[in-house]
Every structure is written in C-alpha cells, then in structure tokens.
C-alpha cells in the first residue's frame, strides 16, 4: 500500500467485486476513548440516515474522559444497526467489529456474532499494548479468535502512508486513523463518503490542513478496501420503506430539548431550564443553551437543589419551567419537588436515568428510578410520571409533559434513560403547524367576589388558577405548609388536610381522562402480553414482532404514561394468561402492576447490567410462557 491510492482515487481501476444484498447489519466501532469512536460512529450513522436506512444506535463509553491509553476501562464503543426494514434496537451482536487496539478487541469479543467479522488495527498489537489490555498472548497469533473472521489491517501505518505528504504533526496524523477505518466501512457497506467530507469541511473550516488530511484518510480507507483483495465482496442494504415524509437523525436528549422548546412556543411562553450538569442528562442543557433566540433561558445552578428551586421560582412567575437531572440528582431535588407538589406549580423534571444505586455506572443505562419518581418524597405526594420510548419519541413526550403540567398545574417527571437519551434514530418530522396550541390561562380578576383564591379549582381538571406575581389585585401567598382549601392559607385543620391530600391525588388521577388509551399490537387476548415502558420499547417491539411473524400468539403494548396509567390498562391486562414485564431494574413496574391489579398473572424479566435488553433475551422469556 502506498499513498498513491489516496491521491489517484479518481483514476482507481475498478475491480468489479460482487455486491451482496443483506437486510440488516450491525456494526460496532471500538477504540480508546481518545480514538474518536463516538465521532466515527456518528459519521457512519449520519451517512446511513441520509442513504435512507432505518437505524438505531448505542454509544457505549466510559465515565472517564481519558482513562490511561490502551487500557480496558478506557474503551469506548459505538454500535449501530441499520436495515432495509423498520428496526428499534442497535442489534444484539455485531456483524462487524472495528477494534482500534488490543483493549477494544478484548472488551468487545462478547459483542460479536459467531462467524462475524473483526477488523483489527494490527499496527498497535505490540507487546506493550497487549500487556496494557491484559492479553497473555497475542490473540492475532493464536486461536482466540477462531470463531470469527479476522481481518488484520495496519491502520496506523496505512494512514501514515496516506498522509505522508500532508503538513501535519505525527500525533495529528495518528488521529486520522479513525477516518481511514470509516472509509473502509463506507466501502464495505456501499455508503457514499460525500456526507462525511461535507461535514469535515464544515467542522474544520478554520484548519484547511486538517480538512485535507481527514478527507484523504477517508478516501484512502475507502480505496484500500476497494482495491485490495481483503474483501471478496461488498454489501448493500436497500433503503428502508419508511413512511413517506421528511426525516432527520435525532438523539433522544436533543429531541427532549426541542420538544420543550416547541411546547413553550405553542404555549406562547418563554422557557426556563434550571439544571446542574450530570451524566447522561447534560446534553439537554447543551442543546437548550444553544437556542436562546427561542426565548430559552438556561440557568446552571450551584447544585441540584438550587436547580429545582429556581425552576419552581420560574413556574411561580408563570413561565414554562423545567429542570433536568439523572437519578442521584433526583434524590437531591426531592424535597423541593415536593414543594412544587404542595404549591401545585407546573414544573417538568427530566430524569435521564443511569445505572445506580449511588453514583453507580454514570454512563450506563438503567430504568431503576421508577419507584423513586413515584414515591421518593415525604408524605402523600402524587405527581405525573411519563416516559418516552425511543429517541424521537422524546420530542412528543416532552411536549406532553409540558402540556399536562400546565393544564393540571402539577409537577411532571419525564423518565428518559441513558440508552434513548444518547441513542439516535431517524425521526419523521412533525408538521409544525399541526402541533397543538397549549392553552395557558393566567387570571386577571379575582375569582371569589372581590377576593382571589389561589386554591379555587377548575371543576373539570381540579387545577388551581395560575396567577402571576405582578397582577394587580391577585396578591396571594403560597408555601409548603398545609393549605386551607380555596384560600391557601396555612391550616392545621384535620379534615381540611385530608381533603387537600385527596384533591391532589384525584387531580393526578384525572390526567388519565386526558391521555390516550393503551394500544395492543397482536392478538386481543391469549397467552402472553409483553408490556414495557421507556427505552425497552425497541427490544420488546423486535422480539414480539419476530415471534408474531413466526405465528406465535404473543401481543405487546407500551406504557408511555405510568402515573396515572392509561384508563383501560386493567381491562387489557386481564385478557392474557401471562403479562410479561421486561425492565432494566429488578421489577419496579411489575410491583406497581401487581399492587394495582393483583389478579393479573404478571411476571418480570429483570436486568441491571447497564446495557439494554437483547432481543433474544426477551424472546427466551416469552417462550417460557407459550
């Protein structure tokens, strides 16, 4: 190999290699945290999106920003599944693993299919690097990888050669090798490199030498794959027959932020987001902070508690007020969140769940904050809990969270998770003009003779009026002490306290009248219903749909709303012999359902490994009940 290939790519002689058509492919990029694997994966995803495939991604990275180079804890991976049909998971195991170093190989062997392809950067399989990755022997030289097709490529050298005429420092050249690898993958799966080249030109516009080198690396990788005999064939994945419409690639946290902005716009309100940085929720803040021209104000508070407090203050002022965090942050917010429950102010709390307890595994996903969201406050403190199911669904559910909060004057917890927050998929864009208006009514006149009563409720929704400070004649006081009905004055009256607690609970229950009924996909009754919530949607969807296609009697349903449940939930559940509830926790929704519907035969499938469900794991469990 030499750099000629990069330079002469326009005159490359095309050998007509075979192009095999495949339905679905899973690719996993893995390297050191400094190797740019997330970026490489993103670029592969962007191109795949533009080429019209459905896809789902799983960024899987360590909490350490730069763990010691070449070590096992420092491995950062990115998995994408793309297909010619509709898919919702990043794939159980990879068809192709690109391993940039011995550590990436070691960590990811379990993630590759038997007979799958492993492309390794042979250049860095030195004794020293092998030792860092705790390899006793060089796995490229023994039978460690006998179950796989291994392709040894001297990525580092090839990149160096390709860029030898570029005026870059050696370390900068070294950093281009991920683009070389990306070029190989583009060729292997018949993807164009044009989108990535556009991106490189935009991204590094101020440094033309970097632009040139990166582009050369991508093309060199592409041509290397094309010309050499290492790949007998190329693969293509036909365009997915997605619903007609305009699409973009979207990440869950990004969709969450955009959904909130859309809701604030439709409520003709400004948006306030008070938060404290925490993985994996911080990207919601980053996204919102970019959009100040949408009347967005972001406030990076001194701690989680202050973030919650400021959000309550903004809600008191009459604006759309949100805060975001992850599990440990929700613990800190709970006292203040309870104030919002008592004061009946509309706040939305985003919890992008991560693996716990305590600090847990910050970059890994889990769904174990459901009971915390439901009950993690002192006293009787019901609020609304809802959960998006996919990255793009975050938009819809963020919008819903705001709509419900202001309509019912109630705090709403939005339970996302690291898997959908960081994952991406194609998003069929909504018609902006069709987004519903969110009606907000701030009283301007007293509501009881010449008096304003802050707790005189709407008879339908039981929402209290939302008078804004600054409105003449409606001066009133609210607070965390027990309130008298209607006036909101401090009250220790026993009967009144019972009444107010009942009213707040009843208000949350009435939200059920305002949300869609649960929909079942599959047989209307029978052996097994699989029901999930949040980010497990994709794995359940794929598992059940495949089994249905095989003629098995299994249905699925998904809960976007957990408190209150959809009004027909009980009626649906009792039509099945077994209700299977897969969750990335030890059975939290299962507990809620068993408590509320004790006669239903509900069973759980639990996993707390920081990783999403694999499709086969769910299928195996379903089989047990058929």
């Amino acid at each position: 190999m030499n750099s000629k290939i990069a330079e002469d790519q326009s005159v490359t002689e095309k050998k007509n290699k075979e192009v095999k058509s495949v339905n679905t492919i899973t690719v996993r990029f893995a390297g050191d945290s400094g190797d740019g694997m997330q970026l490489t994966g993103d670029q592969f995803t962007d191109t795949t999106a533009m080429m019209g495939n459905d896809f789902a991604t799983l960024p899987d990275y360590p909490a350490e920003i730069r763990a010691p180079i070449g070590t096992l804890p420092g491995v950062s991976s990115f998995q994408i599944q793309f297909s010619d049909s509709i898919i919702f998971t990043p794939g159980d195991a990879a068809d192709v693993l690109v391993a940039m170093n011995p550590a990436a190989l070691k960590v990811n062997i379990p993630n590759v299919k038997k007979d799958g392809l492993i492309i390794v950067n042979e250049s860095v399989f030195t004794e020293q690097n092998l030792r860092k990755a705790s390899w006793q022997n060089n796995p490229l030289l023994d039978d460690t990888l006998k179950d796989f097709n291994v392709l040894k490529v001297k990525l580092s050298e090839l990149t160096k050669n390709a860029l030898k005429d570029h005026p870059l420092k050696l370390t900068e050249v070294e950093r281009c090798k991920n683009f070389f690898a990306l070029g190989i993958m583009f060729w292997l799966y018949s993807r164009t490199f044009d989108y990535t080249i556009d991106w490189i030109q935009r991204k590094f516009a101020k440094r033309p030498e970097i632009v040139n080198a990166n582009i050369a690396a991508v093309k060199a990788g592409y041509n290397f794959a094309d010309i050499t005999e290492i790949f007998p064939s190329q693969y293509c994945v036909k365009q997915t027959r997605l619903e007609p419409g305009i699409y973009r690639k979207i990440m869950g946290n990004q969709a969450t932020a955009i959904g909130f902005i859309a809701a604030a716009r439709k409520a003709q309100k400004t948006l306030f987001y008070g938060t404290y940085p925490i993985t994996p929720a911080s990207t919601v803040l980053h996204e919102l902070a970019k959009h100040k021209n949408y009347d967005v104000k972001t406030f990076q508070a001194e701690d989680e508690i202050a973030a919650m407090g400021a959000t309550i203050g903004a809600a008191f002022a009459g604006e759309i007020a949100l805060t975001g965090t992850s599990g440990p942050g929700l613990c800190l917010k709970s006292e203040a969140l309870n104030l919002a429950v008592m004061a009946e102010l509309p706040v939305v709390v985003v919890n992008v769940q991560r693996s716990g307890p305590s600090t847990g595994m910050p970059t890994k996903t889990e769904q174990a904050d459901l009971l915390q969201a439901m009950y993690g406050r002192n006293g009787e403190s019901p609020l609304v809990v809802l959960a998006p199911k996919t990255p793009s669904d975050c938009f819809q559910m963020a919008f819903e969270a705001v709509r419900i909060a202001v309509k019912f004057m109630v705090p709403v917890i939005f339970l996302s998770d690291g898997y959908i927050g960081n994952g991406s998929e194609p998003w069929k864009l909504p018609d902006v003009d069709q987004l519903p208006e969110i009606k907000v009514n701030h009283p301007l006149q007293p509501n009881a003779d010449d008096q304003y009563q802050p707790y005189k409720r709407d008879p339908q929704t039981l929402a209290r009026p939302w008078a804004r400070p600054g409105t003449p004649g409606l001066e009133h006081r609210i607070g965390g002490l027990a309130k008298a009905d209607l006036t909101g004055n401090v009250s220790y009256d026993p009967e009144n306290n019972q009444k107010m607690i009942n009213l707040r609970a009843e208000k949350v229950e009435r939200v059920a009248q305002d949300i869609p009924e649960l929909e079942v996909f599959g047989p209307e009754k029978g052996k097994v219903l699989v029901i999930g919530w949040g980010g497990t949607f994709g794995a359940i969807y794929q598992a059940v749909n495949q089994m249905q296609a095989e003629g098995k009697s299994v249905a699925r349903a998904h809960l976007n709303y957990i408190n209150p449940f959809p009004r027909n939930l009980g009626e649906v559940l009792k039509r099945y012999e077994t209700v299977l509830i897969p969750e990335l926790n030890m059975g939290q929704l299962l507990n809620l359902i068993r408590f509320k519907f004790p006669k239903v035969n509900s069973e759980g499938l639990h996993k707390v490994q920081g990783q999403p469900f694999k499709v086969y794991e769910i299928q195996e469990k379903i089989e047990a009940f058929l």
Partner: protein
Amino acid sequence: MSSTFKDLDLSYTKDDFTSNQEVRWCPGCGDYAILATVQRTLAKNAIPRENYVFISGIGCSSRFPYYMNTYGFHTIHGRAPTIATGLRCVNPDLSIWVITGDGDGLSIGGNHLVHCMRRNMNLNILLVNNQIYGLTKGQYSPTSRHGQITNSSPMGAIDYPINALCIAIASEATFIARTLDGDPKHMSMVLQRAMDHKGVSFVEIYQNCIIFNDKAFQPVTGRDSRDDRMIYLEDGKPLVFGKHKDKAIRLNRLKPEVVDLQDAGDGESLLIHHEDHPDPSYPYLLTQMTYPEMPVPFGIFRAIQRPTYDEMLNDQVVKSKAAKGEGDLKKLIYGTSTWTVK
C-alpha cells in the same frame, strides 16, 4: 377591587401591606419591628403593590410572607434564594425580597446564599440574625457564640461562629449592610437603600429572640452601651462614635483601632468610610470590628455597581435574537440535514 383606585395613584400606607393573617410570633419578638419597618418602607415607595414578592425559607422569620399583603412564597429550608433566582430570571419587573435567618441562610442554605450573591442576582436579601434556632426550640446556630449554652449544647457550643457579612464580602455581594430591630429609623434607611440598589443587596438584621436567646445583642445595642459600642457608618465621613461623639477609628497597619478625636489632630489619620471602596478588604476590615474588643459598625458596608445576572441573562437572549433572528420552530425541528422518503 376597592383598592384599585389606590393602586393607581400608588400612594400607600402601612396597612396596604398588612395581610389578613394573624401574626404569630412570640410577644416581644424582634420580628414585629422588622415587619412593621418593611411595611412602612414599602409604603413610601411608588411601586405597585402587586410588584412585590416576598420569598422565605424555614424558621421564625420565614413566616414573614404570610403577613405581607403582597405576592409571597413560604418555601423550604434554606432554598429561598434559589426560588427567588428563578423568579428573577424570568421576570425583570418585580421587587423581590428574600427573608432568611441565621440557620436558614447560613447553615442549611449557605451554599445558595453564596452563589446568589456572587451572581449579583437583583434581589434584596434580609438575613434576620438572632444567633439561635428559634422555631426548632433553642439549638445553637452558625452565628451562636462559641461556648453558648443551648438545648443542643448543654456544655457550651464548640462550633466557632460564622460572620454573615464576611460571607457576603467573600461572595462579592455588591450591597452589604447591617442594621438592628431596635432602631426602626436606621433599618428603614438601610432597607430603602437596599431596595434602590441594582444587584444583590444583603442586609443582616440583628434581631432579639426573646424566648431562646434574649438580650444576645444587649451588650452592644442596649440602651446603656450603644453609644460607645455601636458605630453608624456614614459615607465619606470618619467613623465617629461615643456618647459625646468624641471617638473615631484609625488604621494601625491593617488593624482598626479606637482614637480620641482630641488626639487625632487634623483628622488626616482617621479612617474615612467609603461605601464604594473598590477593594473588598476594606469592608472586610469593618466586619472584623466585633464586641467586646471594638465598637460594632452598622449601616452600609459596601455599595458598588456591577452588571446583574438577570440583566446579562436577558441581554444574551436579545443578542442571540439579533444574531440568529427570532427562533423559527420549523428551522429548529428540521435541523441542518434532512432527507425525504417518498
């Protein structure tokens, strides 16, 4: 509303700021004087009543908002500055007052107080300091004397106390003052100045808890001692005190010391008070004048100007709109690259 006309002409009396709630502090509590002085001070201003918001945390003094006929929010322990911050960020027109105490503001909510001040959030913070936990029935507070006997320190508090004004200075508060419940005239002057100040105003109010820490400030502010043990700060003037106005303060290197005016000659050596002293070590030095070694200063320690957080926050929205145009929802949703499926 019967008061509509009155609201329009914006002339108020104390009664206009008095709510219909029965005040439930102990008889003789210093909070009564603070409440009345706040109400009287607000009545002197032509600010519509509906534009005032009082936000408090937990503690005796934090019941304050219930007694004010304004907007009010009695929140949770230590968090009042955070709620006020959120309110201020989205509403630039209100006059927002935070009522806190030595436990609420300096112990459980210490973090928020510090950050609220460093941001120069445009709020008026009144820290009612009685050097004791009252509402929880008599435990020592972060400002209690070292060795103070309380219900939770029967052998004497072994905590060293914190000086509220030092915290304010370290946090770079732009307006810092101290006043006392026993001098409504001085308190009213300080409150008015706090209100007029753009940016964060931090006012410590010495307040007597008649039940759990009676006469805590008596040695300084008592009728017999106050002339010799209190200094009322006046901008541009020497720190003169004493029954016969015959004593002043001068600096001996970094240490303030008392001098007889008679011995001070032409007064050139005397310390002259400057509220707008750019160096925070000057007001800090004043905070170190404590009983019993030194007379204790009251008044405005610091008043400087600096852009407020809320101002800059709003400014960024304006600038962003100027640079990118008013946000277009469709553009946001579509992002930078889309594809069409037919």
